[in-house]
């Protein structure tokens, strides 16, 4: 051990950051007369998302066809309750509006949750992290103009998995994570970007999405069945179908909508049930990551090889918290105003102890090393300490508000028939849009990437690079 004197700091004896900072801050704030309102993290969020309700609600930049989806559901259900229910209650049973009501509520709630919640966005790497990773990558001693390869290989369950480096987020993506170019975010366990819900579907909102499509299938089938029964009952005694439709025009609209949507929604539900049972994502299924198309013996390393456990882990597992702290306050304002610190501290303390504790200890260590006088160390050290971590994302209270996940690879394009459910359809569209998306999203601003790497990326249909790949030495 080196013979140096470490400053033994006892955090207990020092003023802990409490929600009443003005005493400390006041004396030093005489320079800043008007404390500007502290900014929340969502206001400086780098992805292409929009936020409402002060960060509680997050949506993608383009809401896709979410209004259409919502409109169709509301209109169809409304017509159902207005036109079909009275007749069916009179002639059959009063359970019908009850069942319909429950399904309708389920559908709307899960739709809104899918659309408005964080799908599992990974916050971008801080500048320090990015620099550290770059240093590790550049260790190959690359002297040529060609940039070093940006993939890492990991062995998961005896399966080799390639981790790709994300140029936008400046980090190696965890397994099953993909970067959505529509929303410009990396999303964990990325499934697809769904324009119908106007959001990405990923780790955190997959269960909402699945419940939505399953309950929508039930609702659509239920309405379809009820309308058919209704019209059949009206048309009996030789009155004819035309007479029945004239009596109840709303039913005709419902019939058309339900008939065209029930097949695609049932198909989508069936497809996703298959995905859940095999613990696959749409992204992996479309790319054929684990289907052994390349001839090798590949299996899905994430599957538990048990349908029941797969379903439970995907749908009933613990819900991870949102990693982007939307409503947290920025540690220091971009314009370096610390007037906001007064208001920031109580909010931080109210939000989570983590931020405050780390900041507090950090500030203490900072001031301790900077000045020999321990007694004057106070949260003043915070601003400087905070600057080193501008990207503080401590989200302990998970707000399942909708998040806009950016579009990533597999993107459903809305076809004229509105059928986006069939996998084959998605396959052709997603591959094309993926290539397009890759071209769009790979910025070369501050990353030393030459154009050649950008070209080889999309053309190789995967973002892996040719050349030596890293194996993790652990």
């Amino acid at each position: 051990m080196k013979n140096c004197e470490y400053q033994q700091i006892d955090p207990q004896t020092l003023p802990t950051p409490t929600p009443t900072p003005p005493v400390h801050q006041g004396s030093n704030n005489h320079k800043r007369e008007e404390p500007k309102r502290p900014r929340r993290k969502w206001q400086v969020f780098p992805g292409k998302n929009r936020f409402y309700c002060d960060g509680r609600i997050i949506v993608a930049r383009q809401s896709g066809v979410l209004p259409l989806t919502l409109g169709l559901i509301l209109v169809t259900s409304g017509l159902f309750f207005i036109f079909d229910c009275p007749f069916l209650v009179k002639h059959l049973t009063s359970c019908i509006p009850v069942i319909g009501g429950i399904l309708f509520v389920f559908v709307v709630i899960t739709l809104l949750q899918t659309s408005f919640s964080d799908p599992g966005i990974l916050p971008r790497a801080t500048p320090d992290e990015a620099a550290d990773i770059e240093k590790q990558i550049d260790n190959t001693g690359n002297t040529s103009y060609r940039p070093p390869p940006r993939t890492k290989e990991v062995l998961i369950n005896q399966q080799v998995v390639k981790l790709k480096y994300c140029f936008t987020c400046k980090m190696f993506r965890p397994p099953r994570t993909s970067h959505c170019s529509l929303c410009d975010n990396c999303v964990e366990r990325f499934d697809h970007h769904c324009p119908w819900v106007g959001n990405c579907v990923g780790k955190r909102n997959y269960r909402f999405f699945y419940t939505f499509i399953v309950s929508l299938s039930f609702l659509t089938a239920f309405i379809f069945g009820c309308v058919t029964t209704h019209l059949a009952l009206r048309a009996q005694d030789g009155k004819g179908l035309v007479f029945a439709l004239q009596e109840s025009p709303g039913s005709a609209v419902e019939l058309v909508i339900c008939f065209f949507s029930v097949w695609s929604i049932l198909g989508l539900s069936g497809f996703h049930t298959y995905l859940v049972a095999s613990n696959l994502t749409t992204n992996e299924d479309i790319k054929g990551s684990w289907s052994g198309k390349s001839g090798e013996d590949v299996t899905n390393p994430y599957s538990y090889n048990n349908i029941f456990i797969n379903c439970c882990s995907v749908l009933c597992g613990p819900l991870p918290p949102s990693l982007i702290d939307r409503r947290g306050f920025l540690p220091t304002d971009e314009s370096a105003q610390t007037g906001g610190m007064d208001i920031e501290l109580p909010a931080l303390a109210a939000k989570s102890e983590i931020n405050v504790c780390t900041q507090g200890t950090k500030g203490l260590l900072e001031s301790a090393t900077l000045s020999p006088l321990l007694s004057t160390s106070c949260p003043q050290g915070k601003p400087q300490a905070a600057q080193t971590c501008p990207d503080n994302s401590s989200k302990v209270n998970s707000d399942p508000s909708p998040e806009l996940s950016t579009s990533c690879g597999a993107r459903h394009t809305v076809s004229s028939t509105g059928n986006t459910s069939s996998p084959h359809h998605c396959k052709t569209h997603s591959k094309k849009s993926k290539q397009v998306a890759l071209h769009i999203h790979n910025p070369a601003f501050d990353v030393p990437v030459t154009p050649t790497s950008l070209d080889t990326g999309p053309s190789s249909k995967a973002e892996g690079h040719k050349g030596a790949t890293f194996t993790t030495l652990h």
Partner: protein
Amino acid sequence: SRPTVFIQRDYSSGTICKFQTKFPAELESRVDKQQFEETIQTLNNLYAEAEKLGGKSYLEGCLACLTAYTIFLCMETHYEKVLKKIARYIKDQNEKIYAPRGLLLTDPIERGLRVVEITIFEDRSIGSGR
């Protein structure tokens, strides 16, 4: 800015949250290797507890499904409870072990669970202050 060491994620067991326990060279002079490994291992165990699939989490999941997941709006999930536990553990470790050695662990949740960031504070002998 200060020198920092980043402990990266260990994906060899899949997508669960786990950090590498390899002892970084920069910390050799600062802290005991065994102590460091114990800290990281405890963190890994805590994260495993948060993500554990078992009867209790399934029950929570099924109940949530029945209520159309609206209970997530008012209830604190099991994961969040463990995250609070992790925050307390890190604070505790900082106070007892790392701060006296001029190191500071940052809670990984503040870095999107990507890294454990360890900030190294320069050791200057602050002679007169003592």
